[in-house]
């Protein structure tokens, strides 16, 4: 059964990669066993960060005002959904900015300052970002308990004013997924800082 699923899912992943776009909905977690350095100094893979009910991957960084604007939502999401079985990990892909505020020591400082209670890892060579087709920070990817992508895109529709959010895209997707329902809106877009790939 699993083999049949993998056979069916593989073309989706390959098509997305060939087109150079974002990871296709329904794809399995790419590079799930690759170890990354966490702010705890431990080596963590996405498989290890996976929760019982799913995994939330946020491509994030220290140097983007859009991240800063949405960062309070990171904390709320961790408080509300990690206890419900969602693993949560922020991944910093800004390879060209390691000396400009996105190095591991900067990440440790950031996590301490803002009270990150989730993994925050360094994506060496932006390999994960490339595998996911991530382009900006923040850029969200939500996987279900079968490790399949069910939502990608934005956290919500109002970065700077959480009380004025009208469309909580990610929370809706999480609630629907946890309730065993189909995610209604599987893909959204938001403005963000381009990932600083090392050219």
């Amino acid at each position, binding site marked *: 059964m699993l083999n049949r699923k993998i056979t069916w899912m593989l073309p989706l992943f390959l098509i997305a990669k060939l087109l150079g776009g*974002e990871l296709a909905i329904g794809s399995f977690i790419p590079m799930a066993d690759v170890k990354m350095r966490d702010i705890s100094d431990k080596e963590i893979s996405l498989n290890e960060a996976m929760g019982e009910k799913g995994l939330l991957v946020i491509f994030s960084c220290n*140097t983007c*005002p859009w991240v800063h604007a949405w960062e309070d939502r990171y904390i709320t999401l961790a408080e509300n959904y990690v206890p419900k079985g969602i693993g949560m990990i922020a991944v910093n892909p800004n390879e060209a900015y390691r000396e400009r505020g996105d190095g591991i020591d900067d990440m440790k400082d950031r996590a301490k300052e803002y009270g990150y209670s989730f993994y925050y890892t360094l994506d060496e060579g932006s390999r994960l970002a490339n595998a996911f087709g991530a*382009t*900006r920070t923040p*850029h969200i990817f939500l996987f279900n308990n079968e490790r399949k992508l069910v939502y990608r*895109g*934005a956290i919500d*529709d109002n970065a*700077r004013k959480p009380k004025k959010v009208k*469309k909580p895209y990610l929370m809706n997707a999480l609630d629907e997924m946890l309730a065993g329902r189909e995610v209604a809106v599987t893909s*959204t*877009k*938001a*403005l*963000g*800082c*381009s*990932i*600083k*790939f090392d050219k």
Partner: protein
Amino acid sequence: MERFYQFPLLLLLFGLIGFSGGCSPTVEIHQTDADFILKTVSTHTGSEGVLVNFWATWCEPCIEEFPMIVELSREYASQGLVVYFVSVDWLDEQAQVSTFLKEHGVTGLSFIKDQDSNEFIDAISKQWTGAIPFTIVFGKSSGNVVDLWEGKESKERFESAIKKALYESMGGS
């Protein structure tokens, strides 16, 4: 419907501001949506190629490539290139946007986004994921998109796209 009637009037107004010989060059920032921007671009079809750059005052790569784009807009103006800058700063930061544009010698019509981001991004281009800087280039004769990219790019990449836009009817460059 009201918006439809406002559109040519606004263009006429901005045209007068931009081309009146007696006035000192000035920048006019219009708070708008994707539809208005694309309609503005389409008014150039058949006469000019158009490069639209999406940027923000807080975006380092945007700021780094900005002077080069201004320089290219001047260099290729006589060959029929029009450049529009679209700021995605918060609306309450319009004063900073205006100051920045003036400091960089940008004159005429410029834009600041006033629309839900999810709708705005998709309406501009399905291929834009939302990362900035974002640049999209429209052909002079066809008005079609001839190139687009996310992130900071080299002068060579910009010039290649500009030449494609200006000389598409001659088979590109």
